[in-house]
Every structure is written in structure tokens, then in C-alpha cells.
């Protein structure tokens, strides 16, 4: 079936490939705590050693649950992003190794002096899968939809395109985006899967049409072929694909002939599917299954979600119980993260150093500041006027210190972590009720500001403003002080100066105000059947364009 590719990367590129893999290995081992779990037979070194990618073959990827909608701006969670990453191209790509944005569909970009206009140069010769050109006009139309939404089709503006004014074709191959406020970070938003480019004809469809994966037309390396609703979707490689991100090892068509998306909602089935080879790649491997898989010669990939915030509990600080910063700080330092790691996580998980992940642009390590200190936590709660009641739960003015946390059921570790925190906080005199795994409550809690704690990690392409600023999605409260930090960072053209403000932002959220109880860096743990080679984006999505399977 499969043959060794003849248009394989030349020695120079193969060298780059090896260097790339070594760089990844170094990055990962540099994460401390041996953050990456790789097995000897399919680990990075041996992948390079075992030779060139094999062309051909069909990969089966099992994700957690089906995605209900496929409109670009709906790709705010992994279920869509993991697949759309291989179906839609973007203007820019965030390269994990160099930690920079690199050209993809845009070959170049630059802002004006006051950071209110961004001009993109569009690559030539790119086509959508229906044959229409992905030119400056198509890009301008996409950006306009991201900025303004489509009212008739009930499509909201993309949250990372705040202050959008217009997107216009300003030259043969140039598009200029105009913003009403400066935004030095704007270009980062174009690297998000939620900025995936579709053929303009897609925007003419109604809401149902735009959400139908069969009608989504992109310029990416894979195109839709067929589906059984809620059961599987088959994608086929585009043979004429020739416009991968600049740093991609594979610059041509995918090695694979195609891939099939399936679902394993039952967590107990995931490791077994990998080891029996019924799925080549599976997301959501439990910590307890990692060692077993590796021992059997399969791979465990800890794909770092650098593009997201760390896993944390966002505190809706307008609720009475948590309105005092000292209470929030007490929760921050009263959480024993090391015990969480020892008890329910694995070496694939790295504990948080900030609200951003290690490796994210502007990350500062604040872990010393919120090191576990239960005695100090109790003092803070005393100072805030919460005294221990007869049953060990603190009280103030007749109110008990009882908090409820919500989280989605899709993370394999969040529920056991929160269960452990229930015990940890009880020692402080705080009654925590965990409703992790209750998805109905989770959806309600997304917009219900009376739920005091919201367990999550969120894509942060637009920086921390859309998450923690006024009108943000996590704390659901106005915060003019933080808005000011966001505005200052957005108006700062100099990167070093901007990173200093980013450091202030992180200190504000984690230490000063403790609006987020940070826990562990975002990571998605994938299992891969022996002989399956996959790398991942900084959004933790598998890169199917560069994936390959060893011949049988």
C-alpha cells in the first residue's frame, strides 16, 4: 500500500527535520519535571532515526465527543479546532520552536505607527478546494466577517477582533485592517483556528449551511469527503496542497491519503483503542493509562496548549463570598498543587507558573509568589473577617464560606483535581462544592455570574483582555483597572516594553487580585499507536498535514 515518498525532503530539509525534533525534545525536557512522556521506540529521536516519512495510509483519529457546529468562529474548542486546523488555512502561524508568528497565507504583515492599521500581503497561487482563488478579496471578506459577524446568519463577531473598523483590499495582493484603537497584538488573532479562512461563497449560506462541515470550503490540506452524523467524518488529502506554514517540515501535500474523525466519549476505551490499533491517534488519555501505553510500545504525546490560558478557576469576584481580595489570595496559596500533581496528574502535566503557560509570549513565572502556605491562607481568611464556625466552615455575618465550581466533562483530569481541592480547601475552612462534569451546569455557568468559580482554560489569542477585562468571558465583571493594563499593552509597539506590561497583567490576575486560581499548564494528552508520527500546534491540535504512518 504505502511507499516511501520520492519527493521526500532533501538532506538539508531532513537535517532541519532532525533539528526540529531535537528542538522539540529539548523544549519538552526543558519543561522540568520531565513534562514530556515519550517512549523509546517512537520518541522523537527514533522517529528521525527511523527514516523518512512514509507516504500513503489513512489515519483514524478519535476525539472525545462530536462537535455540533463547524462555522469558523465556533471553533473555540478542541473538538472543532483539532480538525479545522487541517481543513482551513490561516494568515499566520505560531511556530512553537521559534516562538514567533511565521507566514502562512500572509507572506508579510506590518502595522502603521500608531498600531491602528495592519496590512497583510497575501500569498499568490492559493486556491480553495472548489477551485476559487484565495486572493486579497477573499481574505478581506473573511476578515470583515471575523470583525463584524453576519447578522442575518446569526454569526457573532470574533472576540479577538475588538475595535474592528474595516478590512479593505489596498493593493493587488494587499489587505488592510483598520482598528478604532491601537492593538499591537492584533496579528496574533489571525493565527487562531477561529480565524480559519473559508471561500467567500460559504458566507452566503444561512446559519445551518455555514455550520455544516460538508459545506465548509477551505484551502487547507484536507477536504471533507463523507460523514455519518455523530459517528464519523472522513477527510481526504488535497494533492495540490503547496502552501503550508513557512516553518512546516512538509511543504507539500499531506503524506496521508486522508483521515477519519471518530469519537470515544467513554474514557475507559481510549487507551485500548490505541493499543489495539483501532485508532491511530486518540485524544484524552487518562494519567493512569499513560505508562501502560508506553510500556506496550505506543506513544504518549503531551501536546502543550501554549495558545491557551493555564487551567484555572476563574473567580467571579462580584459574589459576596469572594469579593475580598484576601479571600481569593487565601484560596490561591491554600491550594497544594504539588499534592494535586502527585495524586491525580502525571509527568505530562506541568504545574502553573502564571495565568499564561510556560512558553507563551510574555510568560513570567510567579509560582514563588503563590507557593503553598496554608497557615498564611488561614490568616488571610481571618483578616478578611471569616471565622471558623462550629462545623469547621468559616462564617461571616451569618454567611458561610461555601463556593461552587463548574467545569466541563471533557477534560480527563479536572474532576479528580477539583475533588482533591474540596479536601484541601476544607482544611482552610472553605466548603467547596465541585460540579465538574455536569455539562448542563457548565453551560449555564458560562454566563451566570452568580456561580462563583468557573473551572476552565481558554484560548487567549486576543491576549488576556477578552478573558479578564470588562465584558470578558471568564470573570463576567467589569474591571477598569485591568482594562487599563490591556490598553497600555495594546498601544505599546516595543516588544520588551509590552512584555513588561504583560508581566503586570499576570501579577494582577494571579497575585494582586487573585482573579484566577491557577493550577496546571494546559496540555492535551494524546495516545498514538506504535508507528504513528504526529506533531501538534501550540493550540494542541494534531498537524495531520505532516503526520505519517510507518509501513506495515
Amino acid at each position: 500500500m504505502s511507499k516511501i515518498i520520492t519527493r521526500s525532503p532533501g538532506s538539508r530539509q531532513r537535517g532541519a527535520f532532525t533539528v526540529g525534533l531535537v528542538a522539540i525534545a529539548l523544549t519538552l525536557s526543558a519543561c522540568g519535571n520531565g513534562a514530556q512522556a515519550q517512549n523509546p521506540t517512537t520518541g522523537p529521536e527514533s522517529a528521525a532515526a527511523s527514516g523518512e516519512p512514509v507516504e500513503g495510509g489513512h489515519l483514524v483519529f478519535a476525539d472525545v465527543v462530536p462537535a455540533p457546529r463547524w462555522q469558523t468562529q465556533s471553533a473555540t474548542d478542541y473538538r472543532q479546532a483539532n480538525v479545522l486546523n487541517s481543513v482551513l488555512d490561516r494568515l499566520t502561524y505560531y511556530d512553537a520552536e521559534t516562538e514567533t508568528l511565521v507566514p502562512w497565507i500572509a507572506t508579510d504583515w506590518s502595522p502603521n505607527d500608531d498600531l491602528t492599521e495592519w496590512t497583510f500581503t497575501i500569498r499568490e497561487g492559493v486556491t480553495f478546494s472548489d477551485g476559487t482563488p484565495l486572493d486579497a478579496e477573499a481574505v478581506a471578506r473573511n476578515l470583515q466577517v471575523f470583525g463584524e459577524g453576519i447578522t442575518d446568519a446569526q454569526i457573532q463577531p470574533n472576540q479577538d477582533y475588538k475595535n474592528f473598523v474595516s478590512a479593505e483590499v489596498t493593493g493587488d495582493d494587499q489587505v488592510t485592517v483598520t482598528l478604532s484603537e491601537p492593538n499591537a497584538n492584533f496579528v496574533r488573532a489571525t493565527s487562531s483556528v477561529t480565524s480559519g479562512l473559508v471561500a467567500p461563497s460559504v458566507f452566503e449560506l444561512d446559519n445551518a449551511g455555514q455550520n455544516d462541515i460538508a459545506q465548509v470550503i477551505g484551502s487547507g490540506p484536507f477536504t471533507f469527503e463523507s460523514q455519518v452524523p455523530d459517528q464519523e467524518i472522513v477527510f481526504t488529502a488535497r494533492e495540490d496542497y503547496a502552501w503550508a506554514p513557512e516553518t512546516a517540515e512538509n511543504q507539500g501535500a499531506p503524506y496521508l491519503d486522508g483521515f477519519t474523525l471518530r469519537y470515544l466519549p467513554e474514557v475507559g476505551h481510549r487507551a485500548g483503542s490505541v493499543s489495539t490499533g483501532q485508532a491511530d491517534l486518540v485524544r484524552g488519555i487518562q494519567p493512569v493509562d499513560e505508562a501502560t501505553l508506553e510500556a506496550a510500545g505506543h506513544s504518549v504525546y503531551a501536546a502543550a496548549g501554549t495558545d491557551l490560558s493555564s487551567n484555572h478557576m476563574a473567580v467571579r469576584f462580584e459574589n459576596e463570598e469572594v469579593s475580598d481580595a484576601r479571600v481569593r489570595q487565601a484560596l490561591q496559596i491554600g491550594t497544594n498543587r504539588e499534592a494535586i500533581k502527585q495524586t491525580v496528574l502525571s509527568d505530562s502535566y506541568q504545574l502553573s507558573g502564571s495565568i499564561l503557560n510556560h512558553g507563551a509570549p510574555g510568560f513570567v513565572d510567579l509560582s514563588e509568589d503563590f507557593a503553598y502556605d496554608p497557615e498564611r491562607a488561614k490568616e488571610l481568611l481571618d483578616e478578611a473577617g471569616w471565622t471558623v464556625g462550629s462545623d469547621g466552615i468559616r462564617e461571616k455575618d451569618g454567611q458561610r464560606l461555601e463556593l461552587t465550581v463548574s467545569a466541563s466533562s471533557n477534560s480527563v483530569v479536572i474532576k479528580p483535581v477539583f475533588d482533591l481541592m474540596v479536601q484541601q480547601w476544607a482544611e482552610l475552612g472553605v466548603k467547596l462544592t465541585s460540579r465538574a462534569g455536569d455539562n448542563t451546569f457548565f453551560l449555564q455557568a458560562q454566563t451566570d455570574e452568580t456561580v462563583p468559580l468557573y473551572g476552565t482554560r481558554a484560548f487567549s489569542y486576543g491576549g488576556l483582555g477578552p478573558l479578564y477585562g470588562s465584558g470578558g468571558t471568564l470573570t463576567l465583571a467589569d474591571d477598569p483597572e485591568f482594562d487599563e493594563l490591556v490598553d497600555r499593552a495594546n498601544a505599546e509597539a516595543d516588544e520588551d516594553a509590552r512584555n513588561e506590561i504583560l508581566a503586570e497583567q499576570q501579577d494582577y490576575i494571579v497575585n494582586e487580585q487573585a482573579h484566577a486560581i491557577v493550577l496546571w499548564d494546559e496540555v492535551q494528552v494524546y495516545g498514538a499507536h506504535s508507528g504513528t508520527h504526529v506533531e501538534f500546534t501550540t493550540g494542541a491540535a494534531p498537524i495531520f498535514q505532516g503526520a505519517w504512518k510507518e509501513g506495515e
Partner: protein
Amino acid sequence: MARYALGRVGQALIVIWLAYTVVFLSVQLLPSDPVTIFLSADAAPDPAVVAAMQAQYGYDQPLIVQYLGQLAGLFVGDFGYALSAGQTVVERIGGVIGSTLELAGWAFVFAVVLSFVLVSVASLVKVRWVRAVLEALPPLFSSVPVFWVGLIALQVLSFQLGVMSIFPDGSFLSLTVPVVLLGAYVSAPIAQVLFKAIEQTYAQPFVDVLRAKGASETRIFFAHILKNSVAPAFTVMAMAVGALLAGSVITETVFSRSGLGQIVLQGVTAQDIPLVQGLVLITATAFVVFNLIVDLLHPLLDPRVLKAHPAAAGRTR
């Protein structure tokens, strides 16, 4: 008889309408609303967009207007738009209902066959302990959770023996295993009721008369006992439709099958009212139709039913 039938059909329609109305009202009690949930999945919902969208789908109308509007829509086949799916309710349900019908249909057939075989063998077999074992099976079937057996079955068949795919691949086993598990679960109440009815029938004097006339036990069982005992089993079969649909949801989830199960989960989680309403309507209709059929068959199986129903009895006399 015709009047009896008409009365039953009328009752059935009222039950469906009541189910529809109760669900409509109870969904209103839930916090949040479908539009906010829909929009917050994409971004922080802009109040203006929420308002515009509520207007678009009529969620800004008074409850009674929404209710009557939806009800009127049903008569022209408009079940509304499933926001959470980005499809009309008819498309969303229509796309997967075949899979559920396949599973539920075969499971029902299997359940009926299994319960009759079980009961027949247990009634005719002479060995005491075999009989005791067979009689103990239905309580076992009903007490062991389907999802648990399903998980074990997959673990063994798919991972240890490697004879079955973890994903539904259209193979014989990938349909048979869920059908057998669901069918066994659904067969339990049917078999239990049948056991009880047969026991009662055997206690009737006419059986002694048959034996005295020299009829064989096999003939007595199939020609007389079974015939006089099936009526209550039919009633339970109709009731089993509910268990069948609920069981399908669980079975589909365990076996990663396409079907109504996923939609129920999705619709309820996202408070997608039209979608949930559509599902309720289908479930209630299936339930009611099966019960109606049994009700209408009853007089044919057991004329005494009509005696208890003077109006209908009057017509037949």
C-alpha cells in the same frame, strides 16, 4: 368497537399534547436560555446580538404566543430550528433516527423472542434446577446496568479478543452486541410478567380438565396456557418502548453509535427547546402508538376487556 377505538385514539392524542405542553413549560423553568447558551459558545454574548437573535427565533414573544406558534408549526411539519446543531429539528433528527430505529427495532424483536423462549423452556422443562435458573434470569437482566455490561463486552470483545471494532463499522457484531445487551434488558419485564401470568393460568381449573382429557403438557402449554397468558405481556411490551428508547440512548453512547442518544444529550445540555420538543414528541408518539395498538388488540385476544367497557361491548352484542 369503533367507538372504543376512537376513544383510545383520542386519549392517545391528549397524552401526546400533554407531554408536549409539560416539557414546554418545564424547559421555561431552566435558568439561562438557548440563545445565550448558543452565543456564549462562540464569544462573550453581546446583549444586542442576543436580543436580535431572540427576536429572530421568536424567543422574545410572550410564552403563550411562543407555545401556540410552535404548536401551529407542528401541523405544517415545522418542528423549528435546532440552534445547538445548526440544522432544522427535522434534519437533525432525521439524519440519525434510522440508526436508533435499527438498534431499537432489532432489540425489541430479540427481547420478545428471548422472553418467549425463556418462559416456554422454563415451563416445559422437567428438571427443577434448570427451571430455577431460567426463572432467575429476567431479574438478573433487569438489575445489571446496560452501560456496565456494554463496557465489559467492549473491553473483552474489542480489546482482549479483538473480534469486534470499538467503533460502529457496520459489521455483524457491531450491531448484534448492542442489540443483544439492550434486548436482554428490555426482555426482563416481559418475561417476568409472562411467568406470573402463566403461573396464574396453570392454577385455573380448565387445565385439570385438559390433563384429564389426556392432552400432552406441550399441547396444553402452547395451545391453551400461552394463549390465555399473553395479554398482560403485550401490555408490558408496549410499556417497554419507553425502556427501549431510554436504553438506546445509553447503548448508543457506550458503543459510540450515531442516533437519538447523542441528540438527547446535546439538546438537553444546550437547552435547545425545539430539539428537545421534537424528541419528546417522537418518544411520546412511539409510546402512545404502541400502547394504542395493544389496547386495540386486547379485545381480540381477550373479549372480557370489552365487557368492562360497556359502550364498546354494546356495539358488539
